């Protein structure tokens, strides 16, 4: 399947292991990714907060570039926040013809136009994997079932709310996909309080206490539920849950030491890729215990 691919900013910034992992995983799933290397930041909600027309124009620009990729089935992103911020703009662009034409007017100078097309989509890799590749096809490709690995899902707000904007009417199970994929890969999905809550990242510079109490509490809940690791499709969540975890531990006054994996990394592990190829040695919270368990699986 050929796809226009928007990797986002953070996957090429402070979580480069995510971008690298997707590059390794995509060929295993027969995905041909055409990276949108001229596309701009989705705005992460902040540009929309500053100026809605600006955010909508910037994302219409990205969509227009994606629609220009010949033979692409749609556009794929690898970030919950990109998904949410882009879906918000797309909702407005699709809802009102006059508004869409006005926004497209801002792109005239580049010769770009976003066309409303009910069949065109922008999907996070998680959605794409379940809806367009399918769990059965994925299962057939699993060469190293993650047996015994207890994995706690962490979605990121932007990919589960608001459900109306995010296509839950047509895909009501989108808030259970992580659990479904974890089970398909042979792992044990761990139920705990934080799976659909907020990592706190958006306010890390504005209210560190609120931000890291959120991150810390969810990681503590995952520890208490007996998880070996947390997995998230959102690199911004990853920043607060992994990079900030040593600080977050101070705010909740307990040891955490909870490895946090990017969603494509667990897919890669089950498809036979090695932890190092997937950048698992690049995390702040060490993933060595997870790596050891995976190595034991390979030996079994």
């Amino acid at each position, binding site marked *: 399947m050929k796809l226009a691919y928007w990797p986002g900013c953070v996957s090429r910034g402070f979580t480069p292991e995510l971008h690298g992992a997707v590059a390794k995983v995509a060929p295993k799933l027969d995905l041909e990714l055409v990276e949108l290397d001229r596309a701009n930041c989705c705005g992460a909600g902040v540009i929309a907060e500053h100026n809605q027309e600006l955010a909508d124009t910037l994302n219409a620009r990205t969509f227009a570039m994606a629609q220009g990729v010949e033979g692409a089935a749609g556009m794929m992103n690898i970030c919950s926040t990109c998904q949410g911020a882009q879906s918000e703009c797309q909702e*407005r662009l699709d809802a009102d013809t006059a508004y869409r034409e006005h926004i497209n007017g*801002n792109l005239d100078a580049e010769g770009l136009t976003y066309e409303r097309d009910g069949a065109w989509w922008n999907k996070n890799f998680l959605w794409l994997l379940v809806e367009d590749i399918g769990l059965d096809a994925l299962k057939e490709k699993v060469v190293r079932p993650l047996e015994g690995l207890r994995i706690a899902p962490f979605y990121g707000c932007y990919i589960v709310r608001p459900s109306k904007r995010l296509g839950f009417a047509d895909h009501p199970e989108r808030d259970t996909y992580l659990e479904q994929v974890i089970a398909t890969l042979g792992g044990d999905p761990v139920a705990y309080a934080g799976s659909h809550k907020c990592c706190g990242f958006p306010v890390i510079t504005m209210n560190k206490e609120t931000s890291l109490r959120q991150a810390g*509490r969810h990681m503590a809940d995952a520890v208490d539920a007996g998880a070996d690791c947390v997995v998230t499709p959102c690199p911004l969540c990853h920043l607060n849950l992994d990079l900030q975890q040593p600080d977050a531990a101070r705010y909740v006054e307990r040891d955490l030491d909870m490895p946090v994996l990017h969603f494509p990394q667990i897919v890669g592990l089950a498809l036979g890729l090695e932890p190092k190829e997937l950048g698992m040695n690049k995390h702040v919270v060490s993933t060595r215990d997870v790596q050891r368990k995976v190595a034991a699986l390979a030996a079994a």
Partner: protein
Amino acid sequence: MADYALKIRRFDPESGEPAYWQEFNVELEPERSVLDGILQVRGDQDGSLGIRCSCQAAICGSCGVKINGRSRLACNTQLGEAAERAKDGAIVVEPMGNMPVLKDLIVDMDAVHWKKVQRVVPWLLPDGPPPEREYIVPAESMIDITQSMACIHCGACVSACLSLEVDPEFIGPAALAKAYRFVGDPRDGQTEQRLKDLAEDPHGIYDCTHCFQCVEVCPKDVAPMDQIMRLRRRATDDFEIKDGNNGYGHEQAFVRIIEKWGTLHEGQMPVRSFGQGSMVRGQTDPNAVRQLVDSAGTAVNTLKKVGPRKVLFHHKLPDQKNVRRIFKEIESKDERLELNLYIVGEDAEE
């Protein structure tokens, strides 16, 4: 008629016993409400069951509860639909979150919700002497605040708010939506003072984490988070309020970085955020430097993880001039364009 199991959270403060679960069975049509079910239990099985309700038509906002973990109005939720979403067969009904429980399904709205609403001065503060007759404003200037006016104060958003869960002092979604109702009112004379107050409060507009819970649960589509974003937009862009919470700095940092590079230069985000958007101020202002020092641990971990190159340098997009042109053209307009789907609705066109 169908049978429904209701698993209800019970608590009697006078008993001295902790809260507990109790299951009841009711027989009603699937399109009847969960509130109908609760009232049937109270009428036929246990008269001591506490629930606050009045209109039973999603107007009064009294019967907010959590149904299967989700904050909503009991009168506005059908039994059949709730049963479909029930995990273990029984529809789980509990009191709302983030507020103390008085009895069974009744929470103390005064202690949290109404106190926070009072906090934002929820009445008009006009400038100058009152007119001889009523205040007259053009109807179109009120359209923008109709969404925030639709609030029925049920507390569902307060119950679901994830910032409140870790920071009980957060002013919260309902009260901030109410604040926008007056900030956006052309008759109000204290717009800037209101915004300054809400921006400077460490538990004000910059304590919202964008989690969309309030948008998701509001039975009236008030979208409190959207109103909070409007408050931020007015505070930063109309009044340039440089608050002590880095709200202004964070927005400016993000926007100017994307204007310059096209994608996010994360290495500059904290410095610029602490420096009201400026790299120089972020490294010289004593308050900014204090915050940088406080973030030193994360900075060291970042350097170890991605190396100094990624922290210090960032590539522009190949045709960044196009992104800059978009910024320049749109930001130089006299008025910001905003499409509010709550007000305009969706096109009928297919």
